[in-house]
C-alpha cells in the first residue's frame, strides 16, 4: 500500500533527521475543548520515535471564535512561535489567502496517490485554489438522528425524503402529543444553522451560487413550514446545536439534525441523564424527491504556520497525525470520526464505536461549506437570513433575495 511506504519513509527520515540535528521544539496549538488529554499520549509517542523532536502543546480559548481571535493576533503579527495549529475546516481559504497557512503540496510528493485513502469531504474542505492547505485532523458531519422505538411503535420506516419525514413526524407527534417535537433543527445564528440550510439546498439539487433558485425556496421553505406547522418548536430560531442535543436526549424529539458528538451523550456518556439510550438510530439526511442525500463536512484540520522555522519537521508531524495508527487511536479513545476511509471497517474502531459503520456512507458524501477567504462573511449572511426567516421576522422570499444580494459579490 502506498500510504505505508510514505509513512515508513517519513518515519525513517524522522529518525535520520533526529539523529543528525540538534533538538527541535515544535509548538502545537489547539483549543482547550479539543481534549488535549487524548492528543498528549499521541505526541508523547512521536517524541519517543523522534528523539530530536520535542512537542509543546499550547491551548487557546474553548470556542472556535476565541481560538480564531488568538491565531489572528499572533499571525497578523507574523509570529513564528506556533508551528502547527488545529483550525476549523471552514477557515482553510481564509488562512490560505492571508498567507498564514503554508501550502503542503510541495512537501508531500505525490499528493494525489497519498490523499486517495482519505475521505473526499475533509480533503476538499482543506483545498483552496488547487492547493492543500491543511491535513484533516478529524471529520464530522450532520446526521439525521431518529428514535427507533417511536418509528417501530408507529410502524414507520426511516424517512428517505423530506416529504416522508414531514408525514412521519406529523404522525408521531399526533400520537405522542404533549411536548413531542416531530423534527428538530438549529435555527439560531450559528454554524449549525448554515449547515442545515446548505443541506436543505443541496438535497433539493440547489447550490449556494444561486439562493433564489426553486431549490433554495423549497429548502428554506421546508424549515419555515416545519415551524409554522408546529412540527418544530416555535422558538426554533433560538435553538443552538447543544439545545437540539439536550432536547433529543430528554426524549422530546422524534427526529433531529445534529453532529456526531451527540451520539455519546445519547448513550449516557453525558452530564445530562439520557432518556433515549439504545433507542437512537443514525441515518443519512433525507432528500427532496429523487435528489441525492447530502450533508455538511465539519471537523478540524492541522495547518502549518507559514512563518514557522521548522517546516520540514512540522510536515512530518502533520502526516503522523493523519496516519492510520493515530487516526485509529483518536477514534478508539476519543470517538473522533477518522479522516481515512479504511478505518470505518476497522475492527478495533468498530468494537468501540459500532455506529461508525452506519455513519460511513454519510461522511463519504459530506460536502464542504463554500471554500472562500470570505467565508466569515458568507456564514454571517446565511445564518442571519436563515434565522430571521425561521423566526418569521422575514419572509422566505425576502430572506433569500437579501442573501443573494449580499452573497453574490462574495462568491464571484
Amino acid at each position: 500500500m502506498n500510504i505505508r511506504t510514505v509513512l515508513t519513509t517519513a518515519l525513517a527520515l524522522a529518525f535520520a533527521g533526529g539523529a543528525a540535528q540538534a533538538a527541535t521544539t515544535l509548538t502545537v496549538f489547539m483549543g482547550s475543548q479539543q481534549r488535549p488529554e487524548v492528543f498528549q499520549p499521541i505526541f508523547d509517542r512521536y517524541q519517543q520515535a523522534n528523539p530530536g523532536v520535542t512537542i509543546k502543546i499550547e491551548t487557546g480559548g474553548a470556542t472556535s471564535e476565541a481560538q480564531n481571535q488568538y491565531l489572528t493576533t499572533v499571525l497578523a503579527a507574523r509570529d513564528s512561535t506556533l508551528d502547527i495549529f488545529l483550525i476549523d475546516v471552514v477557515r482553510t481559504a481564509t488562512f490560505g489567502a492571508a498567507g498564514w497557512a503554508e501550502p503542503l503540496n510541495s512537501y508531500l510528493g505525490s499528493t494525489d496517490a497519498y490523499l486517495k485513502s482519505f475521505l473526499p469531504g475533509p480533503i476538499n474542505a482543506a483545498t483552496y485554489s488547487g492547493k492543500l492547505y491543511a491535513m484533516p485532523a478529524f471529520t464530522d458531519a450532520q446526521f439525521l438522528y431518529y428514535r427507533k422505538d417511536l418509528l417501530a411503535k408507529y410502524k414507520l420506516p426511516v424517512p428517505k425524503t423530506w416529504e416522508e419525514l414531514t408525514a412521519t413526524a406529523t404522525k408521531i407527534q399526533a400520537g405522542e402529543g404533549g411536548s413531542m417535537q416531530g423534527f428538530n433543527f438549529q435555527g439560531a445564528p450559528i454554524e449549525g444553522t448554515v449547515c442545515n440550510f446548505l443541506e436543505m439546498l443541496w438535497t433539493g439539487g440547489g447550490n449556494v451560487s444561486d439562493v433564489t433558485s426553486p431549490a433554495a425556496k423549497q429548502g428554506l421553505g421546508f424549515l419555515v413550514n416545519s415551524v409554522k406547522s408546529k412540527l418544530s418548536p416555535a422558538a426554533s430560531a433560538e435553538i443552538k446545536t447543544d439545545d437540539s442535543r439536550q432536547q433529543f436526549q430528554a426524549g422530546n424529539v422524534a427526529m433531529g439534525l445534529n453532529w456526531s458528538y451527540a451520539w455519546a451523550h445519547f448513550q449516557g456518556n453525558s452530564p445530562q441523564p439520557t432518556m433515549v439510550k439504545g433507542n437512537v438510530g443514525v441515518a443519512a439526511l433525507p432528500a427532496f424527491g429523487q435528489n441525492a442525500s447530502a450533508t455538511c463536512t465539519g471537523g478540524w484540520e492541522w495547518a502549518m504556520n507559514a512563518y514557522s522555522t521548522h517546516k520540514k519537521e512540522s510536515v512530518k508531524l502533520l502526516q503522523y497525525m493523519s496516519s492510520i495508527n493515530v487516526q485509529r487511536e483518536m477514534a478508539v479513545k476519543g470517538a473522533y470520526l477518522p479522516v481515512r476511509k479504511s478505518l470505518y471497517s476497522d475492527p478495533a474502531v468498530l468494537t468501540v464505536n459500532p455506529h461508525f459503520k452506519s455513519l460511513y456512507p454519510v461522511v463519504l458524501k459530506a460536502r464542504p461549506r463554500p471554500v472562500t477567504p470570505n467565508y466569515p462573511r458568507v456564514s454571517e449572511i446565511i445564518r442571519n437570513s436563515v434565522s430571521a426567516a425561521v423566526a418569521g421576522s422575514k419572509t422566505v422570499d425576502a430572506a433569500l433575495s437579501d442573501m443573494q444580494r449580499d452573497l453574490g459579490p462574495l462568491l464571484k
Partner: protein
Amino acid sequence: MTSRSVRRRSRESSESRLALLLMLPAAVLLCGVLLFPMLTTLRDSLYLNKLTEPWLKGFVGLKQYGQLIHDPRFLQALRNTLFFGVLTVGGSFLVGIPMALAAHTPSRVRGLARVALLLPWAMPPVISGLIFAWLFNAQYGVFNDILYRLGFIQEPLRWLSTPGLAVVAMVITIVWKTSSFVALIVLGGLQGIPRELTEAAEVDGATRVQGFFRVLLPLLAPSLAVAFIFRAISAIQVFDIPYTFIQQAPAQGLLETLGVYIYRTSIEFLDFGYGAALSVALFAISLAITAVYVRFVRDGSTS
C-alpha cells in the same frame, strides 16, 4: 514653564514645575504603553490591508475614511451605538444613583446592599451576556417564567428572535451590568460629602427630595460628570454584551454596535486597514463628546 509665567510670578512657575513632575509618571505610562499602538492604528488606517484579498495593498491616504460614509453597515452600527448609548447611559444613571443612595443609607442590611451594588460588575463580563441571554431564553428562560406565572403572558415571548424584544433585552442587560459603575462613583462621592451639609438642608425645612436636588446633587456634580464621561466612552465602545447577543439574535442588524463591527472587520474579516479606519472614527466620536464634556466641566468648576 514658558517665559511669560516665569515673569508673572515665581510661585506659579515653581508650581508648574512641580505639576509637571507629578504628571510625569502617568504620562510615561500612558505614552509608553498606549501611544505606539494608537499611532500604529492611525497609520494602518491610511493603508489597504485586507488579508482575504492580499493583493490589495498600499497607501491610499484618507480613502478608507471616505468609504465609511458610503458603508451602510457602518452607518447602521453608528445609529445603533448612539441609540444604545443614550438608553443605556441614561438607564445606568437612573438605576445607579438610587442604587448608591440605597447603599449609602444606614440600615441593617447595608453590607449586603453594598455587595449587591458590586456584584453585577464583578461577574465575568464574557459570561454575563450569556447568563442574560439564557434568562431571556424563549423555551426555559426565567423572565418568561416570571411573566407567565404572574399571568402577563400566555405564550412564551421570543425575546431573542423578535428584533424589537431583542433590543429591549440587550438594553436591560447592559444597564444591569453598568449601573454598578455609576453607583460606585456616586457612592464614593456621597461618602466624601460631610454629613453636616445634608443635615443643614434638613434643618432649613427642606424636604428630603428638595434636599437631594438642592444640596446633594450639586455636591455630587463632579462625581457625576466623571461617571458620565466614562460611561459615555464605554457605551460608544460597547463590545462584549452585544457580541454575545448577536450570536443569539440577528435582530436584523439592530444589535450590532461599532465595537462589534470593528472586531468583526479586523479579527474575523481580516480587513485590518478598514478596521483601523473604523477605530479612528470611533475615537473621533468619543473625542467630540469629551470636548463637550470638558467645556461643561470647566465652565462649571471655574464659575
